[in-house]
């Protein structure tokens, strides 16, 4: 989100008392709801679709909000604040919960003293993620209650309820959003924020907070007692609500699929669950006694369905609904009303796909083009640069999760011994390196393999929209702070071969890669050049480049960069040349970075 937009919106929210209804995304509404609930403390690591929650929250008056180095740290920071008596919010995308799972599972035992709400933003359909895991499973696994709003208004209300439940039951609480809830906008009615008073103090209670086996065994019993109390509570929780209409057909659902279902089957009966864990068994039985045919409409796993079937209640779920991808009104109608006729117009041939691409002037492009010449196996990581795997750059060959590139490169190099020498590379961005790349690099220095690690340092967290991190020198709140020196850090981990290069200088980058690949033992290259979209880097756009059609031989070397402004026009031939077409550059998109001029062998681009 643009800073200008956030600031404008929040200013108007705080100043105009009369402004009661505003248009908000689910993420903005969660931030607003937390503020209204008197929350003044939050930590997160950015990740789509969750990022805007902290960006927006951080702009409210009197709050403390931080980008932590990773999700595990963020949860620990929030636990610390909660133990001091604060209401603490911690925010992450679904896979971030994997990183943070360790403290989450045990804070479920200790309880929270103040309040702790963990927001997990899941990504059905994998719009911007490496997997499609259904984090409702974490609620059952860690024995933590979970709420799931269906739109922005509910998101604002449910975050408040989540904090209230956390305080009442001394438990961490999950709030689950999905991409569609987080990034859809709808009309939200605002409420006055609760008055905040800092009541923090030390609460000494070693039996409750020191999780050694003898204490944890006792807390384990408390967790089960809490579970029983919550099971009673959810039976009368007003956001678990029945809408009895048609008694022949009904739907049990939660979150965004409720909206889709209401859209296509407005006259069905509904049991809309605001809390998806634990389930209100009596209420579900009551609904089942009133409605003949019941569908369970839920995206991803049969989480509700399996629990309801285990109660001995007959429902229809994944027999007809898909397991994968997000739903929409069409999916729900097609699953229930089979064999519908569809009369749609289609273009006469399939359309070329339009995948996302690295931006014009992106510093990653030159690095991958250079790396490509060395015939290596490249382990990738999570960031914009992952996009380089596609044709024509084909810059990396694996990608699993945040920080994985380094350990994987090290492991492959060790396994392949001489065969892998000078051929195994790991690539990772600066923010991702600081998130979870430091420990694997320490492992690599400690256990000594021949892999080459390249850190793409573009001075920001670009993928999620320019968030600060420990290498940028600024905090989320906009304060100047200590800036980590990557070279000193890498050297302190025990890496001796370190080179700093400029990836926009194609030839220098290529020879640095060649040299470091040949080195004995682990090497690290730091490719430093700021993200082209990064405002603080203040990159002055240079005049757009042009292709001289008299010099261009149509060899498509520049097309190999996959730079958005560069296209190739078939059929523009030239006397005395075998060329079949010519390259040209869209001036409106080109920012004159000059990489294409460096790779053109005919000097046709200037």
């Amino acid at each position, binding site marked *: 989100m643009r800073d*200008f937009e956030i600031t404008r919106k929040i200013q108007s929210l705080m100043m105009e008392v009369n402004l009661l*209804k505003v*248009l908000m995304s689910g993420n903005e509404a969660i931030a607003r709801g937390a503020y209204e609930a008197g929350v003044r403390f939050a930590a997160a690591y950015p990740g*789509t*679709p969750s990022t805007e929650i902290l960006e927006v929250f951080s702009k409210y008056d009197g709050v403390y909000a931080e980008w932590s180095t990773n999700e595990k740290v963020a949860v620990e920071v929030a636990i610390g604040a909660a133990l001091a008596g604060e209401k603490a919010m911690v925010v992450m995308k679904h896979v971030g919960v994997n990183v943070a799972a360790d403290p989450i599972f045990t804070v479920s035992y200790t309880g929270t003293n103040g309040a702790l709400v963990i927001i997990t933003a899941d990504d059905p359909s994998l*719009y*911007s993620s490496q997997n499609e895991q259904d984090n409702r499973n974490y609620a059952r696994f860690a024995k933590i209650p979970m709420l799931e709003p269906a*739109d922005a208004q509910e998101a604002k209300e449910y975050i408040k309820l989540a904090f209230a439940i956390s305080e009442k039951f001394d438990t961490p609480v999950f709030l689950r959003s999905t*991409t*569609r809830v987080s*990034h*859809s*906008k*709808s*009309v939200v009615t605002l409420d006055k924020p609760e008055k905040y008073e800092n009541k923090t103090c030390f609460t000494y209670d070693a039996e409750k907070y020191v999780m050694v086996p003898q204490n944890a065994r006792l807390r384990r019993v408390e967790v089960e007692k809490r579970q029983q109390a919550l099971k009673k509570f959810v039976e009368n929780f007003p956001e678990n609500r029945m809408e009895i209409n048609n008694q022949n057909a009904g739907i049990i659902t939660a979150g965004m699929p*409720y*909206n*889709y279902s*209401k*859209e*296509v089957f407005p006259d069905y009966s509904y049991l809309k669950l605001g809390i998806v864990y634990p389930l209100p068994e009596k209420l579900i039985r009551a609904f089942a006694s009133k409605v003949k045919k019941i569908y369970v409409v839920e995206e991803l796993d049969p989480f509700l369905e399996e629990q309801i079937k285990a109660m001995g209640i007959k429902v229809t779920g994944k027999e007809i609904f898909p397991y994968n991808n997000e739903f*929409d*009104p*069409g999916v729900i*109608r097609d699953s229930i009303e089979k064999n519908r006729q*569809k*009369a*749609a*117009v*289609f*273009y*006469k*041939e399939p*359309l*070329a*796909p*339009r*995948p*996302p*691409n*690295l*931006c014009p002037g992106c510093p990653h492009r030159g690095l991958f083009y250079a790396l490509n010449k060395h015939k290596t196996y490249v382990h990738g990581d999570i960031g*914009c640069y992952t*996009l380089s795997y*596609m*044709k*024509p750059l084909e810059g990396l060959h694996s990608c699993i999760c945040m920080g994985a590139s380094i350990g994987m490169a090290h492991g492959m190099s060790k396994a392949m011994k001489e065969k892998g020498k000078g051929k195994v590379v790991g690539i990772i961005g600066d923010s991702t390196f600081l998130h979870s790349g430091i420990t694997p690099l320490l492992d690599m220095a400690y256990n000594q393999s021949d892999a080459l690690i390249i850190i793409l340092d573009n001075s920001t967290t670009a*993928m*999620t*929209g320019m968030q600060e991190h420990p290498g940028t020198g600024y905090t989320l709140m906009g304060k100047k702070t200590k800036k980590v020196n990557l070279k000193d850090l890498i050297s302190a981990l025990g890496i001796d071969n370190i080179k700093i290069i400029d990836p926009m200088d194609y030839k220098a980058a290529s020879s640095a890669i060649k040299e470091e690949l040949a080195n004995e033992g682990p090497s690290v290259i730091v490719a430093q050049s700021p993200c082209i979209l990064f405002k603080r880097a203040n990159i002055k756009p240079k005049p757009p480049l042009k292709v001289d059609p008299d010099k261009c031989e149509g060899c*498509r070397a520049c*097309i190999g960069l*996959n730079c*958005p402004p*560069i*296209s*190739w026009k*078939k059929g523009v031939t030239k006397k005395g040349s075998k060329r079949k077409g010519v390259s040209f550059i869209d001036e*409106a998109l080109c920012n004159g970075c000059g990489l294409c001029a460096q790779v053109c062998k005919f000097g046709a681009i200037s």
Partner: protein
Amino acid sequence: MSDNNEVKSILFAGVGGQGILRASDIICEVIMEAGFDVKKSEVHGMAQRGGCVTSHVRYGKKVYSPLAEPGTIQTLVSFEKMESLRYLGFLKKDATIIVNKEEIYPPAVNMGDSPYPFDAIDFLKKNYSKVISLNAVELAQKAGNIKTANVVLLGALSNHMNIDQSIWQNVIKKSFPEKLVKINLAAFQMGINA
């Protein structure tokens, strides 16, 4: 506002970087100011980097789903020529289509693996009765800034929405920093006249 609970849907489609999300934000504010319930949905993240971008905008007395059902969308605003063809399954048979003539080639077209549908507008005109095509980039340049092409398209869309011009203008004024307001209002007018 109509009395029945008919929910209308607009689909914005184009390429990341064309200002689609900003345009759909503006129209939602306009619809809300006009007294309707409104929901809109799009996906951020990867889609911003030159990939396909769509935004569903739905309004009426009470809106549940931010996503439209296939076959139900009344209006398509396509910011790029080829993208106008990608989502036809979502449209009603009598849909209105507003299409910008700009062509942006995806990588497969550049690499020669796939053709570009140059005849997109003719195809649309053959299959739909209400097709409005315009060169929004050129009009934006005339208005004073090439980046206002999205607002030119909003101007063209406003002709088909039956919402008071003063509401549009107020929302546009609120949506940009002061120095850009005049150019955007000019771009909006260009779209109305196109």
